[in-house]
């Protein structure tokens, strides 16, 4: 005879009490395993969804790239018309033309109805110091589009109204300006009308204002230093053909290619990619929020169930101790040590924990469809559940061990 045998015999004798305890551990372990399995399932599902989304986006991007390629093939050139004496090396070094031509050229070009040009945009551009902020910027005066085909033509570029300013990303981010804010530039007050997003080009340090205001501020009344001719539609031979046509109308100018298909295509791709990334990111955030909600629920629910089960096991153990008072008395009289009595009850609780851990783990796995076998969790449950049951039974077991056999035997 030993304590283990005594524990087994007692469990077989009081099956209901033991089963209630096992049920309690089962509930606690089942909840824990179920909650963790559910979270793991969520993670796996998230990985699958994101991977599918990424694959789908990749596929769409390839299709889009192909579409853009086809679309931009049909686009004409964008060309920049500069004064004839403008050295291109200076243009590329300074980022703006240093020679000027009359603003009237733009009107002349538009009126000439050159067949290969659809849009005419005159501008005055100069690198200046923004004295109020200490920054060097590209100041761009624009007047919008000079229409070639009457008022019905859809504009490619909105004009900047007098007193308004449009800012590149570097400028509005650095100066923390928002739409509607007032700002002073070279002594004049402007209202911020628009904030451009980052392009990674000189546009980021460009401020657009009304052409007439720019001419006045730079002392270049009636002067411009570039005409942007957009959407030039010629099927082949391209630049030489456009150049020839323009030079007929504006003989003291030169024509260079500017921001044509490759740039348009790259920009379109960049935007599509950004949208795709944002869509995936939104999906990730949505899934993360859902996981966080589930985790928060489990973080409250599981400990509550575990606590409830521990209390229940404590009560069951206390009832068991009370029921076995006579047995404790006689065992103590026979010389059984207090420590052995303590183990008699703790051993029962551990057995309860082991049985509950087995069944609870299985129940948790079965309850959550697609739950995978998790060896570390199984090991943790096999250690944790008996430990929890033993802790919950500790006080009743201690009370049993401390009972005075003489008192029991006199009263029984």
């Amino acid at each position: 005879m030993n304590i283990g045998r005594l524990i087994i015999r007692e469990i077989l004798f009081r099956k209901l009490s033991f089963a209630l305890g096992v049920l309690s551990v089962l509930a606690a372990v089942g909840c824990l395993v179920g909650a963790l399995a559910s979270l793991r399932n969520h993670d796996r599902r998230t990985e699958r969804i994101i991977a599918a989304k990424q694959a789908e986006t990749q596929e769409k991007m390839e299709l889009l790239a192909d579409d853009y390629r086809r679309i931009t093939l049909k686009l004409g050139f964008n060309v920049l018309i500069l004064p004839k004496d403008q050295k291109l090396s200076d243009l590329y070094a300074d980022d703006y033309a240093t020679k000027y031509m009359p603003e009237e050229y733009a009107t002349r070009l538009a009126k000439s109805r050159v067949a290969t040009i659809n849009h005419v945009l005159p501008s005055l551009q100069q690198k200046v110091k923004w004295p109020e902020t200490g920054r060097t910027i590209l100041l761009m005066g624009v007047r919008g589009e000079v229409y070639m085909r009457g008022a019905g033509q859809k504009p490619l570029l909105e004009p900047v109204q007098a007193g308004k300013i449009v800012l590149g990303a570097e400028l509005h981010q650095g100066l923390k300006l928002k739409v509607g804010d007032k700002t002073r530039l070279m002594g004049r007050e402007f209202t911020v009308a628009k904030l451009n997003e980052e392009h990674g080009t000189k546009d980021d340090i460009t401020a657009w204002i009304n052409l007439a205001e720019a001419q006045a501020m730079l002392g270049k009344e009636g002067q411009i230093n570039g005409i942007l001719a957009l959407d030039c539609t010629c099927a082949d031979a391209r630049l030489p053909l456009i150049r020839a046509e323009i030079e007929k109308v504006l003989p003291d100018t030169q024509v260079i290619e500017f921001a044509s298909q490759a740039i348009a295509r790259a920009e379109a791709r960049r935007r599509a990619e950004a949208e795709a990334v944002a869509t995936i990111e939104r999906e990730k955030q949505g899934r993360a929020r859902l996981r966080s909600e589930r985790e928060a629920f489990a973080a409250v629910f599981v400990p509550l169930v575990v606590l409830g089960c521990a209390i229940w096991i404590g009560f069951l153990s206390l009832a068991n101790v009370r029921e076995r008072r006579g047995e404790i008395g006689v065992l103590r009289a026979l010389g059984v040590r207090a420590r052995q009595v303590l183990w008699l009850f703790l051993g029962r609780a551990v057995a309860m924990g082991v049985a509950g851990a087995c069944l609870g783990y299985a129940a948790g796995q079965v309850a959550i469809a697609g739950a995978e076998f998790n060896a570390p969790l199984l090991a943790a449950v096999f250690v944790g559940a008996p430990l929890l049951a033993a802790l919950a039974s500790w006080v009743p077991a201690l009370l049993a061990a401390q009972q005075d056999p003489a008192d029991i035997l006199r009263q029984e």
Partner: protein
Amino acid sequence: MDIILELRDVQKHFRRSDGVVRAVEGVSLRIGAGEFVAVQGPSGSGKTTLLMAAGVLMQPDSGAVVVAGEEPYKLSAEQRAAFRATHIGFVFQQFHLVHYLNVLDNVLTAALASRAADAKERANELIKRFGLASRASHVPSELSTGERQRVALARALLNRPKLLLADEPTGNLDEENGRMVLDCLAGFAKEGGAVLLVTHDPKAAQVSHRALRMENGKLAGG
């Protein structure tokens, strides 16, 4: 004759809300090896308290208890438990068998403390000696009262104690079973053990070598 149990001026009082109960008042007693002593007395005379004190279950307020030459109350609680397991056997009126264990396992509960190597052989031998061989696998609820007391006796004798303490062992038994239990106690004494029996039963006193009377916590006669 070796002295197995010696009580020297043992006193045990209980404090209650209505005053002090003087359960054992200056009792001295010596029981030698092979001696069977019966203590008789009315209920509340202090017999059971005396038995508990002699059985190393209840420390007296004063006086000394010597069992087999040792003073067990000078030992730690754990050592006292071990001492009880190896030196003292108990038989109770209510048998105090473990409900869920069969006869063999009930007898073997005494080995939980002693961890005697030959416990199982000894248990089977005692079961046979008490005529319980055919009932070895039965639980207490399947036994007659006489059989239950015999199981309790076998359990008390498993560890070959020097001292057997019996508290009204015949109180719940018919005459035949009562006689059998008393014969067993007498047999134990004959084999060299010491028996202290507390009882109401006059027949039990007749079987003993020495009958003492206890009243109001004091021992008289003998």
